[in-house]
């Protein structure tokens, strides 16, 4: 049995991070609920009807936050990945792995809500417009990252390989953001007029920001939860996991 016992103690971080993350999760969940409730209240009940798009524009309150989060999470993921490559800390790889599925879901939500918005506004579910397309590419990048990591069984190698891919893929984020300029595009057609009436703009902006904060807190909470799972799985032979499990039992 001793054979299987590995002394990971020199990398103290997961052992200390695990309970810390456990304590933080409820707080982020709570924040997320509060921000979400406030944002939805503002967005669904306070914000007035858009005079061009009618009530359909209310999709914006999830579409835009989801789009932002999908890009932002990728950047965070790449940041952790770089950290892991540079300093060989195992925690960073776990964080990157934990973030990817949430990022992919956000990208999917952006596409989904965008499509549901596009049907009434543009008359079609999908156009091959620059921004939509680049969002699709972002989804592919996430999926590529996940597929690569799941194709590798050795976690250390999976972390490193994923990190290289994530860093290479970062180039695409600015491309997504600025892609609108390279094509005459349908998407940017600002049918939501943020400048029409200042009061309306303010409520809408606030609602959007609040929902974005809600998504942000949600992502942190889920990613932390997933990171805890990964930690348990990878460190199952360490002393701290044993003690933890023993403690749970008694």
């Amino acid at each position, binding site marked *: 049995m001793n054979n299987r016992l590995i002394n990971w103690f020199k990398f103290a971080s997961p052992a200390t991070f695990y309970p810390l993350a456990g304590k933080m999760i409820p707080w982020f969940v709570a924040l997320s609920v509060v921000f979400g409730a406030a944002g939805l209240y503002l967005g669904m009940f306070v914000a007035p009807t858009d005079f061009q798009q009618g009530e359909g524009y209310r999709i914006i309150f999830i579409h835009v936050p989801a789009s932002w989060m999908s890009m932002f999470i990728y950047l965070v993921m790449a940041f952790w990945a770089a950290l892991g490559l540079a300093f060989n800390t195992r925690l960073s790889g776990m964080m990157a792995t934990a973030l990817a599925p949430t990022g992919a879901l956000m990208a999917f939500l952006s596409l989904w809500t965008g499509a549901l918005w596009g049907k009434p506004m543009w008359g*079609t*579910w*999908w*156009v*091959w*417009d620059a921004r939509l*397309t680049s969002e*699709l590419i972002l989804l*592919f990048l996430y*999926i590529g990252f996940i*597929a690569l990591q*799941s*194709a590798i069984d050795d976690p250390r190698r999976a972390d490193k390989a994923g990190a290289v891919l994530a860093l290479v893929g970062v180039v695409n984020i600015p491309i997504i953001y600025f892609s609108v300029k390279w*094509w005459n595009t*349908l998407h940017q057609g600002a049918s939501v007029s943020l400048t029409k009436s200042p009061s309306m703009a303010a409520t809408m902006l606030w609602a959007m920001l609040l929902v974005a904060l809600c998504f942000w807190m949600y992502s942190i909470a889920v990613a932390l939860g997933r990171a805890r799972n990964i930690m348990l799985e990878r460190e199952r032979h360490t002393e701290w996991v044993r003690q933890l499990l023993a403690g749970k039992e008694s």
Partner: protein
Amino acid sequence: MLDLLFAVIARDLKLALRRQADLVSALFFFIIVVSLFPLGVGPEMDMLRKMAPGVLWVAALLATMLTLPRLFGDDYRDGTLEQLVLAPQPLPVTVLGKMAAHWLTSGLPLTLLAPVLGLQFDLSADGLLVLTLALLVGTPSLSAIGAIGAALTLGLRGGGVLVSLLVLPLYIPVLIFGAGAVDAAVSGLGFEAHLSLLGALLAGSLFFAPWATAAALKISLE
């Protein structure tokens, strides 16, 4: 006989599931190729709608073709193929099993996914239905015909590209009838003729391909 067939299929499916990446990525390759075209061609819906059947079929073809080197390649390299050839069962049955497993892990998922991608090209409901049907009948032929090419190029380096060279010309009838069926459906013409031709191709290739492949395998091993 059936026992052997199922044994082969079960083993290959288990291997595919174990690898996962294989299963998922053939699908995503399909998605990505389909999505590349509008990028290269530009976003005009009208033109995209006209291109749709061709693009979807070409993508299905390429996705199938990409997975062909794997069909016998791994077994060849690690010596399993010798064992299969030396097993006291008829080789064509073994080969049929491998074809079936290949279709289940490449053609079938493509078929199921195609309608969703068709939506992106704004195909009509009729078009989507016929697209799915045509793929359902057509993709098994792709696996069967592809197996011959895969067997012939075994062990030749650069086999991956060579196999496409051999196989693509044989795929062209499937492509023409397959895309033709969808085209016909979209323009409101009868698509049954195309579909039954695809069916005939399927029957023919299921009948002949196992024998041809078995012969090719024996030659490649010698």
